């Protein structure tokens, strides 16, 4: 059983908390420590952002995180080294890489999939690689036992939901609003209706992200989804912290979110 499947099995109906941080933000030396901090505070799965120069689907908070990481030239290979380092002392918590396709194209799909497996990566979410363009990469990933994670959106029509369900592994990530990461127009009742519709076609766990900003929203989302993804709000905390206080501020918020969705 994959680490992702094992995690959802272990939770047996309890809701998973999936925090996102950008690898290399605020400094590459801190990322592994922050990942361990996330787990200690209650993270069930970690989404680790791979910084990219042109983060088209991200709001200003995660754009700035990518810029901070890129100021230290953090590459996809560096991110894989961080995951390998994390795996030395944590063999249970799934790590999903989240980012854009081009760094993966530049590394080459086959080499990336092998290296990601070797590092201990469990899932890969390429924001700008919908199922239509994903076959080649997904084949390489699955050959290495890595789950390709796909997005679903409020605009996804029924026929596409069925199609994405066919390609998705691990869990699916429902983008809760029409907008970029960290936007502020989340409509929880609407999310609930959409997820009910998704469940008619999708057997995998459904995570919800984009726009979840506090314990109250996290609790409400946990009422309708299997997993709650929080990104921009955590990255904001890192941005406001010093390198010395980043872990503490981050873990305090994650613990609060975790207790809210229990």
């Amino acid at each position, binding site marked *: 059983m994959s680490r992702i499947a094992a995690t959802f099995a272990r939770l047996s109906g309890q809701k998973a908390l999936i925090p996102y941080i950008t690898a290399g933000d605020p400094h590459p030396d801190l990322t592994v420590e922050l990942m361990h901090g996330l787990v200690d505070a209650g993270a069930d799965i970690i989404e680790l952002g791979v910084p*990219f*120069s*042109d*983060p*088209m*689907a991200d*709001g*200003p908070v995660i*754009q700035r995180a990518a*810029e901070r990481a*890129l100021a230290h*030239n953090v*590459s*996809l*290979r560096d991110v894989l080294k961080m995951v390998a380092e994390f795996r030395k002392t944590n063999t249970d918590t799934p790590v999903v890489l989240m980012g*854009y*396709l*081009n*760094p*993966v*194209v*530049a*590394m080459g799909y086959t080499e990336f999939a092998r290296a990601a497996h070797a590092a201990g990566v469990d899932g890969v979410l390429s*924001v*700008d*690689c*919908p199922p*239509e*363009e994903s076959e080649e990469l997904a084949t390489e990933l699955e050959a290495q036992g890595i789950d390709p994670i*796909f*997005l*679903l*959106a*409020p*605009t*996804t*029509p029924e026929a*596409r939901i069925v199609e*994405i369900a066919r390609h998705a592994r691990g869990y699916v990530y429902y*983008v809760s609003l*029409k*907008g*970029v990461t960290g*936007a502020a127009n989340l409509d929880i009742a609407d999310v609930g209706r959409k997820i009910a519709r998704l469940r008619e076609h999708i057997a995998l766990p459904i995570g919800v992200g984009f726009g979840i900003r506090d314990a109250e929203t996290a609790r409400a989302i946990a009422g309708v989804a299997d997993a709650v993804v929080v990104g921009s709000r955590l990255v904001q905390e890192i941005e406001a912290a010093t390198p010395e206080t980043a872990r503490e501020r981050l873990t305090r918020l994650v613990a609060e979110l975790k207790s809210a969705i229990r």
Partner: protein
Amino acid sequence: MDRYDLPDAHGHFGPYGGVYVAETLMAALAELNEEYARAKADPAFWQEYHYELKHYVGRPSPIYHAKRLSEKLGGAQIYLKREDLNHTGAHKVNNTIGQALLARRMGKKRVIAETGAGQHGVASATVAARYGMECVVYMGAEDVKRQAPNVYRMKLLGATVVPVESGTKTLKDALNEAMRDWVSNVDNTFYILGTAAGPHPYPMLVRDFQTVIGEESKVQMPEMIGRQPDVVVACVGGGSNAIGMFYPYIDVPGVRIVGVEAGGDGIETGRHAAPLSVGTPGVLHGFKSYLMQDENGQVSGTHSVSAGLDYPGVGPEHSYLKDIGRAEYDAINDDEAMNAFHDLCHLEGIIPALESSHALAWAIKHAPTMDKDKVILVNLSGRGDKDINTVAALSGITL
């Protein structure tokens, strides 16, 4: 070669093109694709498009034999396709009219656009005023500074210009921001993409709206010289004026097709915008194509004296035409383009856009090596009034 018929149903030109966007936009792109398919088959749509091009834009644009320039060079004859004479001063309006008519068919009241030099922004603001639509234009903060007259033009036309402060603060970042707007307002907003790039169906529909350039040329050249030209040449940033000129000539044997990228300070300096010359295939802004990037797949900053060519990617069809060898791509440096700019001013009384000056510079460089009975058709894609501040500054003159 089999009859050229690309892209395929999924927007691929060989390995290039495609739809590499976040899920939220997939439905909007599918809707656009379906509406365009209906419009394409609707004679009334094209009738209105051509009516607008004739009466609003002033088409057909003439072809002009640059005799004094040709004589001075002493080789091939240089002809200019005068897109600079279009309303708004460039080829961009051919496309914005087409897309605005599509937006109207789809009932969208708000249009957004990205712009580099400001030409596409002006052309978008123009058609938004013409059809009564709200218009928001994203423009890199750097470009807002260096293209102030166009920023004011857009405002006069009623558009909102949003300076983009992220990344390199140029065209690529304006495109990112336009995509972010679109994903947030996808229900009521039509994205008027300015070049033959982006996710399918944009490279195809921008090409289709720009092929009027090549189609007219194919009729005009035989009228003028009794045959087609030996070479057609156009500048390539994203590549919309170039594909508009090239596409009708792809199936014409014996016509050499040359695209000219921005060589900036020189290819060897790394300060340029020439992905077809020295880039590698990658994915940016929703499509796969040649791209300027580092070994880790981060997109490189670019440099060109011409804001309209200052883009790290290129339309996917150009990547395909390069690979199959039907078109060739070369680079012209800033100083060569500047010389061509001045030559055309002095010898022909035409102030060309700095973008178009790259294509012209290629012709000036190669005409002397060709016989006097050979003909080079240059797509003069825009006029240079917008560039006089840049040119003056480079000449050490304060206006």
